[in-house]
């Protein structure tokens, strides 16, 4: 088992979740089961296992940027960091899809937010919140 192999497994798994979110109007419940529950759970088990097995072999810490850089010099911890992105970005994406559906936000407006969250996590979250805020203002006026 190498970090590169697990990377090759985790990426398509997360991608599957994002694909489901992009197609979520077809089957919102199945999409949420996959993108908000099943796939994040699998990624979380993998992440937890990597951290349990390899955390102690890392040299860095969270106290300085140099410390974080030192952590990621370890390829297992680099993988853990990446899987952390994959799992949590997907959870945010699933929340966006759920919220958009509840608030009647058109799917075509959600799609660019999902794409941005997929590529640049927090920027997509920001975009989605801006979208919500702008719509709410329109609704109340």
């Amino acid at each position, binding site marked *: *088992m190498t970090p590169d192999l697990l990377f090759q497994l985790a990426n398509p798994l997360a991608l599957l979740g994002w694909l489901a979110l992009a197609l979520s109007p077809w089957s919102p419940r199945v999409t949420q089961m996959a993108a908000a529950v099943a796939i994040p759970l699998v990624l*979380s*088990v*993998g992440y*937890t*296992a*990597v*951290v*349990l*097995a*390899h*955390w*102690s072999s890392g040299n860095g810490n969270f106290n300085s940027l140099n410390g974080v850089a030192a952590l990621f010099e370890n390829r297992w911890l680099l993988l853990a960091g990446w899987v952390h992105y994959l799992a949590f970005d997907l959870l945010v994406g699933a929340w966006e899809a759920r919220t958009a559906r509840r608030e009647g936000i058109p799917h075509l407006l959600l799609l660019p937010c999902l794409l941005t969250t997929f590529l640049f996590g927090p920027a997509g979250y920001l975009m989605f919140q801006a979208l919500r805020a702008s719509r709410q203002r329109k609704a109340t006026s």
Partner: protein
Amino acid sequence: MKALDRLHADSPRYTPLALFLAMTMVPVVAALALDARMFQGIPVWIKPLKFLVSLVVYLLTLSWMARFADTATTQRAGWRWHECAVVMAVLLEMVWIGGAAAMGVGSHYNVSNRLMAVTYPMMGLAAILLTTASTTLAVAIHRNPNTGLSPPLKSGLVWGLGLTLPLTLITAGTLSAMPGHWVGGTPSDAGGLPLMGWSRDGGDLRVAHFFATHALHGVPALVFLAALLQRGDAAGSSARFIAPGVGALYAALVFGTFGQALMGHPVLAGWG
């Protein structure tokens, strides 16, 4: 699921804790697959897994036996506080053992740095505390006049639960006062018996600890068998001696394996 609902209803703290610990086995098994580090000849994650399995079995046993407890006793505030303390002790124990495995160091017997030297005795206290859950349940079952069990079976539960703490204190107490659990033989788990890992070429005090702590299973199970065999006879007069008799025999088994290990003999001397 109905059986699970019953366990939850009878033991609303130990049942969810057992299920939670069972679920933590998933990432630990995955870590075992990823981790090449060894401790005393076996992968570092075997020990946390063994403790998870035994704590899940212990807690589910208590949850199942809780249905025979006197509810006036178990509804007291003191009972609830004790259960919460046991839950904390179980979680601390697992964090300590799992944390040591993650760092690739020993947990029991490890006094090589200040943190481990300070926590080891505290974890001994936590282990005693979590074992007292068997004693309080023995009292609560003893107090229940309507368990629905035959007198020997009820008595068997009380004896089994009641013997668990004293037998464990004697064996595990000695165990922790010695420099390690091996007496003679190779100090490694690599050549141990399948599953249990007990030494094949020397004494291993974990054998007696195992039987001592499983008194809550062993004694009721043996009483159940004895009651089956005895059913033909007059169930009245001799039936009340079944549970104490089995309890005494069981204690003899514990002390026998204990003495055997202290003398440096493997448990399956001549067989294994």
